[in-house]
């Protein structure tokens, strides 16, 4: 299929080998993202990606085919083509140009509506009662509080495999965004407000999470690990966390809130209750504007 003369060109050979190298070496990169989904939310979202991409091939395809085809066939040098310099309209062509795209948009709209409601970060996942987690975005680290367990960590989130986690987020500093691409989509964390994210892991493993909303010099290093542990492993992790000597209260909070990158995860064995609410209030939450899903007033617009 590829002409022999073309392959003999040194440039072509170089381009092909580089291309293969990149594809082979680089494909492992995709294992870091949603194409290697490891939880029900990311898996469902990946499904949408594949379905929509397949449909869109029929949108892009005609353009990619017809453009070079027409341009080449109707080139000035070609004497074998018809030339109709004043031909500028045809109802058939109009119908072809307007109707199929509208149809495709309608189909995509149905998909969009359905998937958006199912993959809503605020939607509680089916199954067992979720693990409750409070996440506070800081410069440049994430603080995870387990209010039901009375423990907290910096930059390490552990969840039991197969059980949903319900994360409430806020920011003690600027707008941030928590993304764990192999498990779920992201959600902003903002001062004075709470947002929510529901996710689960269906396989044990270590998954990377990060902030994607630029917040200064330490932004690139604001990463954390999500450990999806089988039941016993999760209990063991909790045990280790409870045993941690550090305490998280108003005094130690000051040190935590300082602008810094934390190279290794830190554990707090005891946490002062209500700390999350205090952070929300301190960063401007007037108390009434608790959740911001929908309009600030609509507390009743909950899942």
């Amino acid at each position, binding site marked *: 299929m590829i002409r022999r003369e073309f392959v003999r060109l040194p440039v072509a050979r170089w381009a092909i080998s580089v291309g293969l190298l990149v594809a082979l070496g680089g494909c492992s990169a995709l294992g870091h993202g949603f194409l290697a989904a490891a939880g029900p939310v990311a898996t469902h979202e990946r499904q949408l990606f594949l379905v929509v991409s397949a449909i869109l091939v029929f949108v892009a395809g005609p353009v990619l085919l017809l453009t070079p085809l027409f341009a080449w066939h109707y080139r000035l040098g070609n004497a074998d083509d018809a030339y109709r310099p004043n031909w500028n309209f045809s109802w058939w062509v109009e119908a072809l140009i307007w109707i199929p795209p509208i149809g495709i948009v309608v189909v995509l709209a149905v998909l969009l509506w359905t998937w958006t409601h199912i993959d809503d970060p605020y939607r509680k996942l089916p199954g067992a009662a979720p693990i409750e987690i409070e996440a506070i975005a800081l410069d440049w680290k994430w603080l995870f509080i387990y209010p039901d367990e009375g423990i907290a960590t910096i930059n390490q989130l552990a969840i039991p495999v197969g059980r949903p986690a319900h994360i409430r987020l806020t920011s003690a500093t600027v707008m941030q965004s928590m993304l764990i691409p*192999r498990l779920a989509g992201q959600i902003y964390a903002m001062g004075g407000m709470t947002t929510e994210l529901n996710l689960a892991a269906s396989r044990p493993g270590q998954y990377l999470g990060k902030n994607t909303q630029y917040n200064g010099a330490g*932004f690139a290093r604001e990463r954390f690990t999500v450990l999806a542990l089988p039941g016993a492993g999760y209990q063991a992790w909790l045990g280790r966390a409870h045993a941690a000597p550090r305490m998280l209260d108003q005094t130690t909070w000051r040190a935590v809130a300082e602008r810094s990158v934390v190279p290794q995860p830190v554990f707090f064995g005891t946490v002062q209750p209500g700390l999350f609410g205090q952070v929300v209030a301190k960063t401007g939450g007037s108390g009434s504007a608790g959740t911001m899903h929908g309009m600030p007033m609509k507390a009743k617009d909950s899942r």
Partner: protein
Amino acid sequence: MNTPVWPLLLGRFEWRDLPFVRAILDPSASNLVGAFAGGLVVVGAIVVALLLTRYGKWRYLWTEWLTSLDHKKIGIMYIALAFVMLSRALVEAVLMRGQQAVAINNPGFLTPDHFGELFSTHGSIMIFFMAMPFLTGLINFVMPLQIGARDMAFPWANSVAFWLTAGGAALMMASLVVGQFSTGGWTGYPPFTELAFSPDVGPDYWIWAVSLGSIGSTMAGINIACTLYKQRAPGMAFMAMPLFCWTSLCTSILMIFAMPPLTVATALLALDRYLGFHMFTNDLGGNMMNYANLFWLFGHPEVYILILPAFGVYSEVVSTFSTKELYGYTSLVLATMVIAVLSFTVWVHHFFTMGQSANLNAVFGIATMTIGVPTGVKIYDWIWTMFRGEVRFTVPMLYALAFMMTFVLGGFTGILLAMPPLDYLVHNTLFLVAHFHNMLIPGLLYGMIAGYHYWFPKAFGFRLDEKWGRIAFTCWVVGFYLAFMPLYVLGASGMARRTHEIFDPAFRPWLYVAMAGAGVLFCALGSLFVQLVVSIRNRDALRVFAGDPWDGRTLEWSIASPPPEYNFAVVPNVDGRDIFYRRKHAEHQAGPYAEPYAYEDIVMPRNSASGVAIGVFAAVSAFGLIWHMWWLGVAGGVVVIAALVTRSFGRDQHRILLAADVAREDRRWRAALAEAQAIPRQREMTTANQGLAER
């Protein structure tokens, strides 16, 4: 070094605000790059001044260009500004690509803050000081010629708008020499850009540069709209206008309605920063979500402001170089209007992840996808224009073809991003960066470069070198694919944007390819400059004085190249679309070059220094406000107001060109026309092309 030098006079300026001082105190790679950049600006300004003195061109520059109210001159100045700023922003992109290629488990050669400034200036410059000036310049130059007008509706306001934009660009350049720029991106989201998190001059530079640019663009929008509504030649109904004029009209309406939200967003941020307001702060009731809404109420129509003029260029280019009438004129007009209206209904898709309800996100997602329909209609209309035409692969046509095929890939990823669940996965990753560059480079930039090639002969009287044009084209296309396709993969792999350091070695091969692409794009820009130099040197061989090098269809090709100051010796009467082409090919008429029955006196505006004064001193005032040099802020403002008032009192602002002189100039051109050799399209790229088309 760390305390203000002279607060009363110099505000908060400290010695270490000079990049040269920073480089001496700490000669890190990052500081040396900064000092070099600052030095380039200073040395560049000095070199330009020296050259102007050496060749005695100060007076020429002042009277022929800077103070001119002529839409053609202003248009060319806009485009020259765009090319200068494109050069800077492209170099910044190469630096960022370089940093990301090198900084894998390694701090790289740029500090995080320096990197932060680079992505902020890159975006701000490309949008506000490259793309907006480029498209405004093209519209300025071409549109009045296409509608048979002598100038824009408000020539003086045209000058003011240009100089405000130039003033904003000057502030961007000043940030290289003194102080630093914002690290908050081109979007400037609070609370990061509030005093609590960024107390330095950076966000203030951003606020004022963008404000000056946005006021200039609003004025330009009003001017363009009024010109199209009121100055069309007799007989030119709206549906007889060239497509480029339709897209200019819709662009201008978008400018009028979309720039104010930006003005409000930046002004409110300024109130927070200067007067301690709490519009967007974390504490005391500020609401950062209002900023996001205001900014993107501007930001989404803005990208349609950027793309519609390029669509207009493609309509002209594809029709002319398919030697055929544009297919589906009415559909194209309808599609343009639908795009303009819908562009105001989709802004939330820029922050799907901000926690809105599923209903809200879904509605905006569906609205976003809907814009794909009229856009697709336009692309198909261009494809069907080629059908049964005679396609010539000139450089502008090559850009149009590359655009059609590459832009559709960006549309593909755009629909993906319009789906909230997918946006949740790739928002703020390199996938998003790849998508919008996929729209802006093949869409806007190829369109602007195509327009530059297409109308350059009209503006200057000689064609651009075709060989170097093809070299540049190849580099732009290859460079784009190499630089941006890897970013889709990286974004899908979870790599965030604006990342100065990478910790996943698996990303390395993709970042290397992207770096190579950036290098090729740099060569593309270089090729354009080489092309310009080569063309100027060969201008006699490339001359197309007769005015119609491409066998054009619209009115701008019916006059000399370059056009006389007043464009048309006699304002033409129009009776439909593609009037020039029809007159060339109508058997029974006198033809497109018949001498007018009678010449009349023409009133032209005189030059004015007030536009320059307003732009320059608005920038000076802004500079004072940035540095808290309150005396300078006030003084600059006073000069601006004084210039306005002075202009308002002036009563010697026009001059008459006598009919006899107009007649003489016109007859000279017609005489030369009679001597010129008409050529068929097969020879349009040869030196035989004098700008006269065979009929």
